[in-house]
């Protein structure tokens, strides 16, 4: 059996949190942005955005585990969330 180092375990734990928690936050922000951006009646926009959210969440989770390091995964999730979150905030201020 190959021994599993603590470094490896830490990486897995960090990625898991990034995927589940970070992914949910990123997905929530993205889905809210999509809902606002869609030039459709509210009911349609909210439906499309929510339908898409599970696809977004799945992609984020898989990317977090596919990328080369846990650090990159965290930077990616936080950076994208921050950019989208800023966009959401600006849109919210304008409305």
């Amino acid at each position, binding site marked *: 059996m190959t021994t599993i180092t603590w470094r490896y375990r830490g990486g897995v734990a960090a990625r898991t949190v990034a995927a589940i928690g970070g992914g949910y936050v990123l997905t*929530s922000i993205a889905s809210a942005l999509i809902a606002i951006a869609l030039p459709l009646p*509210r009911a*349609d926009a*909210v*439906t499309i955005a*929510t339908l898409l*959210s599970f696809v977004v969440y799945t992609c984020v989770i*898989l990317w977090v585990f596919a990328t080369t390091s846990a650090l990159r995964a965290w930077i990616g999730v936080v950076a994208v969330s921050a950019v989208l979150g800023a966009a959401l905030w600006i849109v919210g201020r304008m409305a």
Partner: protein
Amino acid sequence: MKEGLRQSMAWVHTWSGLLVCWLLLLVFMGGTAAYYKHEITFWMKPELHKAADAPSRVTPAESATLAVRELQQRAPTANAWFLDLPHERNPLIYASWTNPPSKGMTREERRAAFRTQNFTLDPMTGEKTAAPRDTRGGEFLYRLHFDLYYMSAIWGRWIVGVASMFMLVAIVSGVITHKRIFKDFFTFRPKKGQRSWLDAHNATAVLALPFHLMITYTGLVTLMFMYMPSATKALYGAEQNTMFSEVFPNAERVKPARELAPLADIGPMLQHAERAWGQAPTRVVVTNPNDANARVELHRPSGQQLSNIEPSMTFDGASGALLSDAKPLSATLDARAAIYGLHVAHFADTLLRALFFVCGLAGTAMVATGALLWGVKERQKYAKVIAKGGKAGFGVRLVDALNIGAIAGLPIAFAAYFWANRLLPVEMGERSNAEANVFFIAWGLAALLAQVRPTRAMWRFQLTVGAVLLAGIPVLNAITTDTHLGVTLFGGPGLRPVAAFDIVVMLLGLLLGWAAWWLGRKAKKAAARQPSNPASTTPLEAA
């Protein structure tokens, strides 16, 4: 994760699948059974079988009139009446109602008022049928697959939602990691240990892959506004109810006027709908009966479209005038309803429904073989230790035990539920709860025994118990009711569900029996190969 994309996806696939697989087995089995929840409920109420034997000779309009007459006597001041009229999957007239809560009621009383009360009419005579025994029937299995049990529905839904998301991730990562997806579908290498389990997992997964992906995604969609509220928050703020009334526009309810007005004759309304649709409505909802604001909603039977929102017509209950056809949905909302409809499959006719059922079984097999594969693979890492007479690690033992408790134990629980339905005294109080308790007691016992001794003998024991219980159901039915296979196979079409239920559970029992027999043969072979150390062969290792 480690080396390349494929390896990291394999890792994600393994762990996202393994962590939730036992819960998914429950969800898959319950959901698969729920495709036939009406038939299961009917089987579990043998008191109704007799009335269903003769084909209905009354028109839908006449049967609705019969039910309304009865409801006028029993619940003239109800909140709402619900009628299910005879059609292909339902031989009888079902009527139920909810009572309005009044001021000064305790919370318990309020809840009891809202709980539906019901009766069943024989469409031949218009008379009430014998009161059926108290059982939740197929509804219990249906609710179980997303509400779980012994906890509030909200908790159950979140837990099942998280497991479904794990499943979605497992499916997509499984596809990515699988480079020969098409070729592997035609590959089966039996009797080659781990490779055979891998092939079986691939075959059951790939064979019904569109179904697995669809059912997981659409399952999440059924409760999507709860799981992913951010888009709603962004567009509606705190006004979640506004969103619901816009996305589900036909769910609007009219408040009672508190002004007495006798309900108009319902027969002409049904005839009007039948002329318009070329099909008689099968579901009638009357809100605020005998009130000036009474509404009669007629729903077209399902089967013509994917969407689960069937066209409906609303009539003014006091005047009998047609108010409106249901508002047509926008393309997006219709698409959502179709995605939802795909999950619940109300549209499916006999053949398609059977195909959904088989796909559900394939999904169960996919989860089961995947769980077994983990144990087989993991054990190989301990091959040298085991050869020296040592034991595999704690994780392997735990997974083995959970596998036995779920894969072999759950069929026992399902079978026990059906046995309890026939064996518990009919007059027993809280009977439907007792049936549900039997389900969990049986499952708990199986899971506990599996933890105590997760061996191949335990596999065989539990598979055999499940096989005997399931295959014995037609016998049980013959002993406890008059509608056994000898009657139902030659009776009217109304009894077909009873016959089909008996046959399907018997086949499933035989399948489990075959698995137990096959394991026994394996054990003998393994013992013959290494007579010196029979204890070293752990379950399914050589399978």
